[in-house]
């Protein structure tokens, strides 16, 4: 299938890395470590939220290895390395969240080593919805806003938060549409293309991102397609560190249609638009509690993740699940145990493929996936 101009644009954004975003004159960049971040709050403060999501295989780790041990995931180290190598210059600050012990300690290490940056840590609640949870999250978001006000010396108005919600609803809606399109006709959109289109949004203002997504939608709709004999799979586990594009190409080449995945999960988080009504900060908090994804970094007793995964498989008509945890990613690796039990109960075939952002040979993975696919196709 031939690439399209919009996909090539997204590819160029990815290849350019964070550099161009850091040099923009309209809004200073603010790094958002995965998974979810309330991007709107930073946007409302006049900043450009960008993904602080590692460096792929693009840099050598020189300094970060001395700070974080060998058994720590790559994204933590390469994100830190970017800072040590002065590749985050121009970044106003960065925010980390209560996703895992590594991300939490990483926030401290950033704070100590890069005192000029505004380092924020958001404790996203690990509990179910209830009035006290919502009140807490609102107070947390207000605290973050107050911190930004003190840092930047200007008010962060509710009206600006409303405007930012509107801005971000657009690319999120478009991404949902593209995902739906791919679930329905996976032969129309390569997963590596969709991945690049989504990932580009972690380095662009939402309106620029939307323009690319809109163009892509039209281009994909116009494609002539032919469905192949492939296995429809759901990908689970790559919500934080991101896989190399080559790995996705490998999965497809080995006979999979990816009909659902959790790549860049935080940037696509909501299952519907965040309401644009009054009290935008509360709307944003409530949306997080009620319309967010079931992801390994979030505990929600009302919506157990292993049940949600089964539902995703059924809803997308998938035949199998490929677990794709980043190497050393504790939340994803732990969840595998419960997921696996549930898949076995439900008779859903599954395969585990660990990855690292810096991985560059895929031969072994290809072999494993091919065998898995064959076992399903000729069952």
């Amino acid at each position, binding site marked *: 299938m031939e690439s399209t101009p919009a996909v090539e644009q997204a590819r160029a954004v990815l290849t350019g890395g964070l550099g161009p975003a850091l040099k923009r004159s309209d809004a200073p960049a603010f790094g958002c470590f995965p998974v979810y971040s309330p991007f709107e709050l930073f946007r409302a403060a006049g900043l450009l939220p960008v993904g602080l999501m590692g460096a792929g295989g693009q840099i050598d780790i020189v300094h970060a290895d001395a700070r974080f041990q060998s*058994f720590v995931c790559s994204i933590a180290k390469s994100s830190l390395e970017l800072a040590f190598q002065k590749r985050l210059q121009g970044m106003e600050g960065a925010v980390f969240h209560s996703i895992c012990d590594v991300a939490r300690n990483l926030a401290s290490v950033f704070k*100590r080593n890069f005192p000029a940056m505004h380092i924020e840590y958001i404790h996203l609640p690990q509990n179910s919805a209830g009035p006290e949870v919502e009140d807490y999250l609102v107070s947390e978001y207000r605290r973050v806003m107050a911190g930004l006000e003190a840092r930047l010396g200007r008010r962060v108005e509710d009206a600006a938060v409303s405007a930012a919600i509107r801005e971000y609803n657009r690319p999120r809606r478009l991404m949902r549409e593209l995902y739906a399109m791919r679930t329905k006709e996976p032969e129309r959109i390569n997963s590596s293309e969709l991945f690049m289109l989504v990932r580009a949004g972690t380095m662009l203002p939402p309106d620029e991102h939307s323009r690319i997504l809109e163009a892509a939608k039209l281009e994909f709709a116009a494609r002539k397609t032919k469905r192949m004999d492939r296995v429809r799979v759901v990908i689970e586990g790559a919500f934080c560190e991101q896989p190399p594009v080559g790995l996705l190409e490998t999965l497809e080449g080995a006979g999979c249609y990816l009909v659902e995945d959790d790549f860049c999960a935080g940037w696509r988080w909501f299952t519907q638009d965040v309401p644009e009504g009054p009290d935008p900060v509360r709307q944003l908090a409530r949306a997080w509690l009620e319309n967010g994804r079931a992801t390994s970094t979030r505990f929600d*007793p009302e919506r157990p993740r292993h049940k949600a995964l089964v539902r995703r498989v059924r809803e997308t008509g998938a035949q199998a699940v490929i677990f794709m*945890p980043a190497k050393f990613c*504790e939340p994803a690796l732990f969840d595998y*145990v419960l997921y696996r*039990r549930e898949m076995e109960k439900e008779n859903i075939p599954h395969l585990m493929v660990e990855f690292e952002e810096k991985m560059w040979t895929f031969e072994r993975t290809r072999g494993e996936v091919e065998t898995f696919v064959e076992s399903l196709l000729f069952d």
Partner: protein
Amino acid sequence: MAEYATAVHEASRKAMTAWYDRLAAAAKSGAPSAYTMISGNCVEILRAFDIEPVFPEVNALQLAIRKQSLPLILKAEEMGYSSDNCAYVKADAGFTFAGGVGKDGKIPTPSFILCNFVGCNVYIKWFEHSAEFLGVPLTMIDVPFVRSDRPTDGDVRYVVSQLNKLIAECERVTGKKFDIDRLREVCRLSAKAEDGWQKCKDLCKATPSPMDAYFDAINLMGPINVLRGTQDAVDFFDVAVKEYEGLVAGKKGPLPQEKFRIVVEGPPPYPFYRQFRDLFAAWGAVAVQSTYSTVGGIWEFGFRHDPKRPLESIAEQMLMENLCNRSLLDRYKQIRRYVDEWKADALVIHSVKSCRLFSAGQGDMRDYFANELGVPTLLVESDLEDPRYYAQAMMKNRIDAFFESLAHRKLIKRA
């Protein structure tokens, strides 16, 4: 060393054995019990309802000390746990599936699981798994991580409102009505034990230190966490304070001669506790403070449960007054105080693969203490539960080299 601090050892052993006996009895009788975690725990509320607390972390470390952890870890890995997951969880899962929990085991199937999410994200996973495996309900207390100097009012309100939900769950499980006066009494007893804790830690400022505040602290950690809020805990600390005061007066410590005073950061390698300890003893190195001993609470700096504000003080303990819910930079501050006020010569970081809460970023800690503050710092690696990550010869080399150079430095300093 045979005669050293025997009363404390004995009293601690007795207290813990009695607790294990109660757990075994509860396993048979079905008396109310709850799983909960050590860090910043709210055992007071369970106590107020006579619900026996079960600490799977303590069980896991006991399995490791008794060298029983590896087969259980392997069993868990067969179930899909990764070699990179916290081995405490794996040992516990293996133990559960090997029949350790329930009527025929030594640990009761809990009436419910109380997940005090205080710092460690693994807690959530661990207890979700236990709830699933055992088919029991889970109550989550989501404790916001300390993001600035103090918890915000919103944080305290949030935790207190969840404690009220916990109280409702305890009422459901036991059929008892909540009695605030009973909770006040429990908090009063907690505060008394915490006084004893602080005294023991303060006594380690003496030279020589009367106890090894890392290796021997485990004798205090059991009672302060497992028994806090009972008269037994108060009595235990009376024994401990008396014995350590006597040792200070007699200028005695755990080793014949205290040559180096160290602060230790990180949990110990439980499967090789003795061997690891001996490597320090060989150099006359005594830990005068340790961060690991404060995972349950940091009482040495004055925090107490408050009978006048029971729920608020429980919330403060969970939010702020324990090691796990504080940032790495707050831990640096804590260690600095230890080095200064307890007059330590060096910092030893034991970095464990299992526990990223402790270990992620310890390289930065080493950089800060060694390069910025000029505190001699040693970083060694192994694990707290999984014996596969401990290499005695390498450990010995690293430790010997470090103390050799420390001894050299001391000599030069004196000259």
